[in-house]
């Protein structure tokens, strides 16, 4: 085995060593992220509740606008009858 070959093998072992320690760190990091996922979900759930409340209120507001329009129409129908009554 010539010197060049030896040097290559040595470098390969060094890389492998670094990679294995890096993999250990990576595995642990994944384990952490995995376990903490549920924790972030609680924040997301709260944001969902806020959005639901907003949508519910907006839809109530919309239905109120519709009701107002209908009531104004009824009022104008009643005024028309009044006008006819006393014409």
């Amino acid at each position, binding site marked *: 085995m010539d010197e060049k070959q030896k040097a290559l093998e040595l470098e390969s072992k060094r890389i492998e060593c670094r*990679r294995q320690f890096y993999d250990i760190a990576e595995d642990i990091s994944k384990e952490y992220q995995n376990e903490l996922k549920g924790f*972030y979900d609680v924040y997301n759930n709260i944001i969902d509740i806020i959005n639901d409340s907003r949508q519910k209120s907006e839809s109530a507001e919309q239905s109120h606008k519709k009701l107002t329009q209908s009531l104004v129409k009824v009022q104008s129908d009643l005024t028309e009858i009044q006008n006819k009554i006393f014409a």
Partner: protein
Amino acid sequence: MTISEAIQEIIKLEGKNIFDDSKRLHAMLGDLASQNKKELNIFRGAVDEKVLKLCIDDNLKDNNKIARIRTLLDDKGLSEQWISFVIESLAVSLGWNYTPIEPEKELSIVHNLESKAKPDDFEKEKNIKFIAGEYSTEIEVIKNKLVSLYKKNGYDEDVQKLQDELLRVSSADKIKIVVTGQYSSGKSSIISALTQNNDIRIDSDITTDKADDYDWNGIILTDTPGLYANNEEHTQKAIDEIRQSDLLIYCITSDLFNQYTLKDFKKWAFEIGYSGKMFLVINKMSKEFGEYEDLVENYKLSLNRSLSPHSLNEFPYCFVDAKDYRDGVKDSDTELIEYSHFEDLIKTLNDFIDKKGELGKLDTPIKILKSSIDGVLQSEVSTDQDRAYYNLLSRIERRVCQSRNNVKTDISFCIRSGLNPIVEKGVELSRLIGEQDISFGKWELTNLVESTCEKINSKLQDIIENNYNSLQQDLQEIMESNTANYFFQSVNYAVNKKLNFFESKQSKFSREQFNSISDIVKNISGGIVNIATKSVGSASIVLKNSEVSGSILHNVIKGIGDFLKFKFKPWQAVKYIF
């Protein structure tokens, strides 16, 4: 669907018993034959309970039924064309043996049966009665539509109120004429003169402090406290009575309008729309010197100027002296009676009642319906309250998002930097390969990983707890902001009042907005949003230890803390290489 097809359909569904319930039958007709609006209105106005009873009277032959129905419809003032339409619709749907015949022939059948002459000199009255029936049906349809709108949108309290008021006016079958005007304009004298009731208190001072009803030939005359006597309570009582009136007698003296009475008269007549049912009486004419005709001519000119751009001719009116009339009647002084011109008033008023009484009665429920709608429209949720609510939601949302992103970044950095010793150990050992013997086995690696993770766990606990505390603090600040104070002030009444079965839409809406904010706060902090009832508008989040432990976020944080402290051993997942 035509009217007769609709009736056939209804009979199929409900049987002929439906003819005992005219309201239900008319409502079902409205649903099925809604395309034929004019025919429908005429039919519903014409076919009342009496007609329906005749329709299902098994003791009568078809031709007798038809003849009697024709008489009823004729009495209502319905034209021949519409009478034929109504009879034909009923005949087709009920399968009567009906061949259209000359109306006179049908009438003669009835005359023979009942020996009752058809009145022929009340055409005008009949027309009014029929128009009243027609409008009455239209009003009923609108009322049902309104009630259904209210119910659909949760205005149950208003439905109840509306129905109570309508019931009150519908149970009063007499025409109600309210006599109003400035104090000491002689309202009580006019009522006393009309009713010949000498027990009514009459004085030059303010004598009427409450509304009193008097019967005048089956008509209710209501005496009211005078307006503008510097007595708010009296004025309000008079206004309440005016609102319930079918017709209105507005009384002024020969001094004519002053700035207050003119404004008041114009308000009722032209702004509120009572002009069609108002009668103007100019009383106390005898206190003026001069010929009656000359005085009247001058007063008319003056009144027309006051009412411009409207004119006096838009109302029935009379210039009288009620006191003279009373005295004249009392002393049998025909000259005084004539001089009072009060008999002109009696005649004009009778004509006015004949012409407008029935229709004026219809106006009362319309006014009640309109006033109910006004109330609901005014209760519209304030846009400022909405703005404050949305602003609070957005601020909390922004803060929760920010908190989530911060904690995510901090945790990520903490883990990455915390694991550096392991990566660095790998680099360090790799450099020694080929240089010297390496003594780093499973035991050394386990120690390295364990100590690294314990440090990370401890830092993570701090990060999560600090983040949570900071979120709590920010939430407290948001709840104490001006926006929050404005919002809580707006919803305070709805939140703190005692709940009853009929809750107004506005109140329900405000309470729902408050509850949603309260739920969100509880989810984050476990705290309870409390609006102090004594100092309106100040809100605070009350935090108690027991309540905080109920927060979802807090429970998770506590759980993670315990998890990191006692259970989480990520090194157990490591695949050992040595």
